[in-house]
């Protein structure tokens, strides 16, 4: 493919197409709408389907329904719509139906400032719905990564039968950058695990050697039941503790046992960095800038970029914390991932650099934190 200048949001759309997405349901909202707009144009070309639903609740519902029907499905939204989607994020987690949700973060709370950027939904992406369940959340740093991580999001969602959130932001979503899209046929695509037993034997929620049971699509001969009540291996409602406990354990295990696969970080560390910047999303751009400047000034500083925000890179940050004396966490919010860094690395080591007014954290702010010993 040729070199192009492209917005992050558009790259998400192409990532979806490359991953095999065939369904998009959404409701327009700034600053995510370009994703819907490009897919309304591109999906029919590949035989996919686009629908604008009556609201965000219905949008995610339709995506889950389409996924059950066998189509890889995407929705995209921003803060207010993301809040409305919380109930169905939990539904997808509970019923283990693959679906990808993009949240292009804008300045909140509430209506806030629709055209301004933010990283204010980091904690919400993990904890926004009621009850306990694991969640995979990816966050791109560039337009190219918007493409790559969208593909990853689909792959994780199919591989682990789980909703996956792509948490991007207004800066990355609206920014134009040079990108050379790969040949889509060369992109690694994970398809959901099909069952190989006859219908009478099929257990939609169990009986698999791995923690991820094969998923049959509706209409393909495997008639089964889906419910977000606690259910047994056949999918039927249950109140038996000996059926509830294994479900909870398995659903956590399927993520926890695969942290190596799921947790994506970029480390730019040298052996005894006393100062390390832990960063993600748009702020990582400023952080890189600051780190390069600091290094030009011969300040030793390391950097860890989290591409997977959740599950949190506990091991990686623990490791960094062993040698680092100061960990700088710049965020376009009032300190969210910093909470986890503090938890894992110790509160006294963490230096928060926050800006929550819609503007990017500047390299200067981070540089000052790096050099302020």
């Amino acid at each position, binding site marked *: 493919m040729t070199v192009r200048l492209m917005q992050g949001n558009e790259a998400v759309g192409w990532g979806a197409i490359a991953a095999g997405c065939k369904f998009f349901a959404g409701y327009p909202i700034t600053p995510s709408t370009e994703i819907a707009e490009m897919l309304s144009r591109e999906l029919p070309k590949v035989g996919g389907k686009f629908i604008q639903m009556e609201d965000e609740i219905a949008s995610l519902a339709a995506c889950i329904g389409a996924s059950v029907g066998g189509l890889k499905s995407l929705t995209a939204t921003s803060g207010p719509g993301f809040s409305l989607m919380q109930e169905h994020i939990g539904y997808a987690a509970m019923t283990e139906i693959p679906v990808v949700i993009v949240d292009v973060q804008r300045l909140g709370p509430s209506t806030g400032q629709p055209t301004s950027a933010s990283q204010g939904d980091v904690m919400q992406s993990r904890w926004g719905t009621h009850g306990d369940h694991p969640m995979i959340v990816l966050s791109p740093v560039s337009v190219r990564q918007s493409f790559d991580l969208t593909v990853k999001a689909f792959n994780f969602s199919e591989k682990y039968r789980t909703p996956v959130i792509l948490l991007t932001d207004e800066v990355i979503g609206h920014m134009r950058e040079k990108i050379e899209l790969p040949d889509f046929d060369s992109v690694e695509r994970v398809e959901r695990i099909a069952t190989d037993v006859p219908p009478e034997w099929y257990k939609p929620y169990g009986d698999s050697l791995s923690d991820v049971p094969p998923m049959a699509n509706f209409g393909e001969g495997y008639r089964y039941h889906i419910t977000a009540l606690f259910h047994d291996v056949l999918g039927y409602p249950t109140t038996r503790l000996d059926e509830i406990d294994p479900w909870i354990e398995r659903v956590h295990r399927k993520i926890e046992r695969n942290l190596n696969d799921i947790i994506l970080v970029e480390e730019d560390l040298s052996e005894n960095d006393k100062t390390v910047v832990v960063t993600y999303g748009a702020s990582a751009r400023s952080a890189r800038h600051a780190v390069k400047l600091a290094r030009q000034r011969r300040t030793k500083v390391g950097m860890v970029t989290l591409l997977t925000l959740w599950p949190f890179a506990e091991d990686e940050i623990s490791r960094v914390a062993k040698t680092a004396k100061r960990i700088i966490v710049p965020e376009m919010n009032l300190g969210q991932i910093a909470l986890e860094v503090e938890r894992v690395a110790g509160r006294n080591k963490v230096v928060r650099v926050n800006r929550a007014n819609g503007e990017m954290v500047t*390299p200067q702010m981070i540089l000052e934190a790096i050099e302020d010993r």
Partner: protein
Amino acid sequence: MATKNHDNRMEIRLAGEGGQGMILAGIILAEAAAIYDNKNATQTQSYGPEARGGASKAEVVIAQGEIDHPEVIIADVLVAMSQEACDKYAGNLKKDGLLIVDQERVGRVPSSRAIKVPITRLAQESSGKSITANVVALGVLVGLTDVVSRQAIIQAVAARAPKGTEEMNKAALSAGFAAADLVGKKRPHKA
């Protein structure tokens, strides 16, 4: 902040009113750099406070190497197409930065070194349409700074020109180049 920029980083801000096409100009400039000059470029933008109209601003960062922070930190070049834009952004220009203003729309300039070009009038004269002012502005900017090559901006403008407007836009760009040549090369000092 100090701008010991990596890799010849150039920061350009194009500002004006909604409807003047400054964001499109930013996109074209970034495309010239990224696609035709094979450099790296990022383009960002912001809208005015209200839904429609009001101020509008595009930022383009161009560099040989990777671009980290994608927004203008302190501009090397500011193109101001309205008084409001000039007032608002002139303060965020490097000491030796280049300020280009549309002579007829910007009365007060903060420094005598500002380059005044009757951009909108040149658009009208060269292409018959004042809406090509953004392309004239690109011509002036590139003509004066070489942030991208003339060849690249010519290709980029051509690629973006809607069918039937190619000639018009080409004329506007040339008018910009000509105006720049007249002013004389005056590149901002690079660190």
